[in-house]
């Protein structure tokens, strides 16, 4: 049984404080949803935990079985058992998925196991095997990229997986397969899942145990699975009093990873960004 405990996490991006004290604790096999309006800091939370460059930690801690993740370089966090399924997986020309997975498990597993594990995982989520030897994420559709992330989760079997908007870019059938695969990982490998999303559609297959509402850089409310449905119906208006973590006028680096009010291509285009 593993534990991920986040306490008082504060972080800054582009000179602006986005996370203002996030507290969240979870254990192996649990599914925690983090939902919230655009610009609330959801993706920032994911990147700060994974150690993405450009995100500056101002305070707090994130302990994985007592190991301070925030003190480790990104790759050691991953080796400690943390996995990030990215909202916008980066294209890495010339590096195939197989190369990546071999390099990431080089010390523990052997290459043959990786090969067969990749094929099994590809089959489970309907990911075309031809992509296994192609350059990472290059010329992949949004949906294929998300399947690719899910496949890696399946092969690497982390202790905790952060899913940053895994549902975006997936059509209904793909979402069902991917959601079911992650749900299975929580049971088969006791993977703990922190699912960051704007919508609740991922939760038809992946059943959350706990739902957190992140707004204004803090967890504003925590509840059971029913909270996700409630949010779907009522929206996030109730937290509109919480000052947005990302001011819409703020000058931020042109970086799609920032879930700023205008940068989420999957956001409701008719929503009033200042609401």
């Amino acid at each position, binding site marked *: 049984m593993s534990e991920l405990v986040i306490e008082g996490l504060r972080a800054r991006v582009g000179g602006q404080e986005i996370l203002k004290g996030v507290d969240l604790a979870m254990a192996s096999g649990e599914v925690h949803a983090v939902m919230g309006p655009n610009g609330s800091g959801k993706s920032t939370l994911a990147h700060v935990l994974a*150690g993405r460059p450009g995100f500056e930690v101002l305070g707090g801690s994130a302990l994985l079985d007592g190991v301070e993740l925030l003190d480790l370089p990104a790759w050691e966090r991953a080796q400690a058992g943390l996995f990030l399924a990215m909202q916008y997986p980066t294209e890495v020309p010339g590096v195939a998925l197989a190369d990546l997975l071999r390099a990431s498990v080089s010390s523990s597993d052997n290459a043959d196991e990786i090969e067969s594990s990749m094929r099994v995982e590809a089959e489970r989520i309907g990911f075309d095997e031809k992509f296994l030897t192609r350059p990472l994420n290059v010329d992949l559709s949004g949906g294929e990229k998300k399947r690719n992330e899910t496949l890696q989760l399946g092969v*690497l079997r982390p202790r905790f997986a952060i899913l940053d908007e895994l549902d975006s870019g997936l059509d209904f059938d793909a979402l069902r397969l991917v959601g079911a695969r992650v749900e299975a990982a929580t049971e088969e490998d006791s993977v703990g899942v922190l699912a960051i999303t704007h919508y609740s559609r991922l939760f038809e297959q992946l059943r959350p145990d706990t739902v957190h509402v992140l707004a204004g850089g803090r967890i504003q409310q925590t509840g059971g699975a029913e909270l996700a449905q409630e949010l779907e119906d009522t929206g996030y208006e109730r937290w509109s009093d919480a000052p947005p973590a990302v001011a819409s006028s703020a000058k931020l680096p042109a970086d799609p990873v920032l879930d700023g009010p205008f940068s989420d291509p999957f956001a409701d285009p008719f929503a009033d960004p200042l609401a």
Partner: protein
Amino acid sequence: MTEFSTDAARALAGPSWLVDRRVRAAEDFAAAVPPDVADEEWRYSAIREFDLSEFVPSSQPCAAPTPDFELDSSAVVRTVNGRIVSVESADELSAAGVYVGPLTTAEQGPDLLGAVGSEAAGYFTILNDAFVADPVLIRVPPGVVLHKPIVVTHHVTGDRAAAFPRLVVDIGADAQAEVLDHHTSESGPLLVCPVTELDVSPAGRLGYLNVQQLGSSTWQFCSQLGRAGRDARLTVSTAAFGGGYARTRSDVRLVGRGADCDLSALYFGDGRQGLDFRTYQDHVAADTTSNLLYKGVVSDESRSIYTGLIRVRPDARGTNAFQTNRNLKLGEDAWVESVPNLEIENNDVRCSHASAVGPVDAEQRFYLESRGVPTGEAERLIVAGFLGEVLETLPVKAMREPLRSAIDAKLSRQRRSEGVVS
């Protein structure tokens, strides 16, 4: 005064037509103005540090070194200091009328030498004309298709030796061949000025791969001169790893309608190496296509230069011409210059050029790190992948694995020098 006099050229062995040709070139050379960085073509180059008087022409043969790769080939020619020391050729080749061997003993030799090169003569090309010891000829008659590559190796050795390898490849109409041209040298100060002429007749197909693994103190001034006839397909590619200062000029002239040329290069400099590439895509005929992709990596205090020109002549309507140079700079002290150029004299064309210089992409590195790949290993994967894009398109497929090993060797040297620093 240098040792590269008309008398020295006249003293070289060979048939009288070749001796006469050398002497004429030596006279031209004596009158030629040495290049200078003030000339656009030599801008950024290390030419001011070069002193020809430090070298002596050598055509002293000895046994060729054993190459560190094995290749299933149809013929192998080896030269040492520009002198042919061995020719092995499969029986099928001569049965099919293919000629692989000394140009001087081939019937059309005198006509073929310089047939492509004469119009683009530069200082070191003229020097090659004057001191070429023993040109190599590969001649594939019309309609003959070779399924295994022909290999030519050149080695330079000796005290301050200067060597002038020459390779002439003549591909007949609708014929097809692949040629590996492999260059090595000893580690001391040496000079090598190779000239390669690639002539592809209508509908012929030639894949040429130059692999440069010269010693770390060798000066190289190399000319690759290609000409593609109607509907011909010519690939001129280079993989450059060695040399102290190694310059390669690649010219392709598309003279027949529908001709198609690919130019590609991958290079990896480290230590204090300078790798210098100049390219010229010259579209003479209509409906011709040329596509250039050069990708390089520089680390330590090494330097790379790329300058290229696409020229579209007035009659070359319907030209497609592309030029891309991308560079990865691994470290603050490495230096890259990249200057693509266009000169277009016809409106009905599609041309583009692009160049980029930068460090390993932080987002790409983070993506790999976020899967548990250590930083150094992530960078090595990205660099190998970056060059892999060119590697996967090179002719002489069987060389890809040896070239991958050469890249790995450079990368592990990189890792060691990192270790020394930290």
